[in-house]
Structure formats: structure tokens, C-alpha cells
């Protein structure tokens, strides 16, 4: 029996019995048409599971499982969208999900990083940023910067800075937030975000923690 967070670009799979976690690209999941899960969430999880859970609900329940505080903000920055929940007294005070505008910025950053061979663990944060209205507009700004003579590394760091600013504004400029998702492992993202407020990374399995509750 396995549970899965099937995101747009990455799929996280947990065996609750052994605790083993498998992380695969979602393009790999798509090539496994018979892969089924007991409980799943995420855009690509529907139709592959016995029980489907809404992503925001999984995020909220995952946050409550991992964070002991009564009041906190939690944001999941994914490939396709940004999900946010703010809790007060461990009750949901505000939630939001950035969809059409601002979408695919995470996936676009990954594409840019691969294209320009960027190592995000060593990429220095940039003081400058480009306006990342959405993935496509943001990429156009990066290409423009490069054509003006800015290095690809600096241009991608500016995109990343624009993405961070979007996240900070989207979640209401808190003094501290918990971060969920693959960006927890992106050192440049973390260092850029910490220019604005304290950030505590929770890793890539927050939604899986939320899904555990559905098993009980």
C-alpha cells in the first residue's frame, strides 16, 4: 500500500509501512499507467488512487502534523502553482492557491536551469529581479536580460528573485513562514527568500504527511 503526491513535474511516493520514499519525475509516472495508490493528491494523482485528497487540504493537514505552533504560515511552491495556508490557533485563517497568473513559474525555473546548466546550490542570489508575472512572461524577461549582456546565471537568479517576491507578496509578507516543496532544496531560493523574512524548510513530503491522515 503506497500513498503519493503526484505533482505536475515531480511525484513523491511513500510506503507508510517502511517509511521508504521514492521521488520520480511525473513524466516517469505517466509512463507507468498501472501505478496505483491507496491515497493520492496532486494534478496527476486523480484516477490513480482509491481515495483522492485535495492538495490544499493535504498541505494543511501535513503542516498540522509537522508544525507544533498554533499560529503559522505554510506555503508550497510547486512546478505549476503556489499553495498557501495561514493558521491561527491551529485553525485555517486564510488559504489561497495561485493558479493562472503566476503559474508554472517553478517549472519554468527548472527548465531555465537545465537549459543554462545552472547549479542552484552554488548560484549566488541576485540583488536585482525581473517581473515574473507568469512562467512565460518571466522567461521572456530572462531572455531579454541575456540579450542585454547579463550573464545567464545572473539572469536566472533575477528570475528566481522575482519568483520569491511573488511568493512573499502572495502570502501576505509574513515575518516567518514554513516552506514545502522542491524549493526547500534550492539553496539560491532559500538565501533569496531569507532577505525578506525567516524561512523554515519542511521538505518535499509535507503533502504526504497530510495524506497519512486519510489512512487513519
Amino acid at each position, binding site marked *: 500500500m503506497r500513498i503519493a503526491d503526484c505533482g505536475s513535474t515531480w511525484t513523491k511516493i511513500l510506503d507508510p509501512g517502511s517509511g521508504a520514499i521514492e521521488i520520480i519525475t511525473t513524466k516517469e509516472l505517466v509512463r507507468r499507467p498501472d501505478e496505483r495508490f491507496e491515497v493520492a493528491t496532486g494534478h496527476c494523482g486523480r484516477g490513480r488512487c482509491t481515495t483522492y485528497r485535495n492538495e490544499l487540504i493535504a498541505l494543511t493537514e501535513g503542516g498540522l502534523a509537522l508544525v507544533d505552533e498554533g499560529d503559522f504560515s505554510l506555503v508550497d511552491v510547486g512546478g505549476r502553482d503556489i499553495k498557501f495556508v495561514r493558521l491561527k490557533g491551529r485553525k485555517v*485563517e486564510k*488559504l489561497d492557491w495561485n493558479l*493562472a497568473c503566476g503559474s508554472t513559474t517553478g517549472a519554468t525555473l527548472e527548465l531555465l536551469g537545465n537549459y543554462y546548466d545552472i547549479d542552484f546550490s552554488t548560484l549566488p542570489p541576485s540583488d536585482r529581479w525581473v517581473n515574473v508575472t507568469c512562467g512565460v512572461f518571466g522567461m521572456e524577461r530572462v531572455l531579454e536580460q541575456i540579450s542585454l549582456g547579463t550573464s545567464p546565471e545572473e539572469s536566472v537568479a533575477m528570475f528566481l528573485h522575482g519568483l520569491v517576491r511573488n511568493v512573499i507578496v502572495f502570502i501576505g509578507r509574513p515575518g516567518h513562514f514554513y516552506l514545502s516543496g522542491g524549493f526547500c532544496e534550492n539553496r539560491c531560493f532559500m538565501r533569496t527568500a531569507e532577505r525578506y523574512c525567516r524561512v523554515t524548510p519542511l521538505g518535499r513530503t509535507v503533502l504526504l504527511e497530510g495524506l497519512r491522515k486519510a489512512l487513519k
Partner: protein
Amino acid sequence: MKKRPPDTVIGYYGFPRRKVLREAREEFGHSFPLVDLDVDRGAGDSGVLPATTCRIISNIVDNAVHLGSALSAIVAAVGEDKCDRGRHAAFLLRNLGFTVIESRFPEDEFENRPLVFSRSRMPLRDKINRIMATIVDPAPQSPFPQTCEPTHGFWGVPPHDFRILDLFPSTTHVYGWVRCVEAGRPGDVALECRLDEGVPTVFFTQSFCAKQDLAHYLAEKHRGLAVDCHREINDSILAKVEAFLKLS
């Protein structure tokens, strides 16, 4: 009166003055149905407007072009009760050869009709359809639905894709422009922004609609959820609203 084919209709959009609608029917024929052009009627893309146009305005133009000569006239709300793009649509449609009658709903014609449906217990989809029908027939058909305390709120205009409405419980109260329609006060911004404190409310607009400004402001102020959508609803939007309704 000029003889017209039997499939002739009179189009309208927004909430035209009742007097203007009545006069249009007198002039063009009482027997012809009134057709709300704001609504998705499956018309193809006319190509008249840019892709970044509010879907409701696109519906108006696409429906008119699709109906073509069957449309004897268009009664167009072009005042503060609609929006600039409604006014521009009237201009474009006239230039496309349609007979357009403009309506600006003045404050001194605002009514104070009872909120029979906005506060009722019934499926949200039916509630909004019944309210919008009062533009053409202001006498609500009895029996009236029961009123109820609101568990949730829906603020905004009728969406292009009504599937989003099916997520809401029957105890959802209607606010915003739809409530203004029921009250007979389509340009009353104060009423449009009036809400019941503490009711978890979804503030819905079509993408590229000027009402996004109000929705964003009100959602922040009342800790609600602002949702905008271009064209059809997708799974992400449905999931976002579902989560809000469940967790709030």
C-alpha cells in the same frame, strides 16, 4: 412594424433599464423572446475581441455574431451598471451592423426589491438563475424559497461556467452584483460591497474583469477567497474553492 422571421430574438446584456427593455419589445415585437447575451450559448469565437477579454464580454459579442440576422436589436447596458468594455462592445456591435439600443441605469431608478433568492436555501445555480431572470420578469414566481442563515457566501457576477456553483451548499448567500440585480440596483457599489461579517465568502470574477479590483480588496478585508477564471473552470480552481469551503 417590419415583418420578421419567426426565429427572431431581441438580445440584451447586463441589466438594462426596465423602461428601455419594455420599449424595445414594443418596437421590435412582444412575441420575440429576450435572450441574455452575457451567457455562454456555445457560440464560436467571433475573433472580434482580443483573447485577453473578460469572457462575459466575449460571450456578448460572440453570441451576437452567431445569432446574426436573427437578432432584431440589442439592448446594451453601457453605464456604470455594466463596465467600459460593455460600452465598447455596444460600439463594436453597432459598427458590425447591429441595431443597438444603449441603456444607462440611473440612480433615481434604483429599486428596493426584497432579497427573496439571495438569502434563500436552494442550490446556488438555481438561485442565480432565478435572480437573473428577474431582469426580464421582475415578479418572482411563487412559491418563494425558505430563507436561511448563511454558512457561506458567493460574491460576484454569474460565472461563464456554472460548474463552480455546484460546489457550494444550498445555505450559501449571494452577494455582489448578483444581489444588486435582485434588489434592482445594478450600479450600487455600496450594496455590491456589502457583506455579512464572518461568513466565509468566495469572491468570484472572470479574469480580465474590472471587478477583480473589488474582489481582491474585499477578499483581503473579509479574509475570503478571491477566485478568477478565464473561459472554463479547471480542476485547480474547483479544488481551491472546495478546500476553502471545507476548511473555512
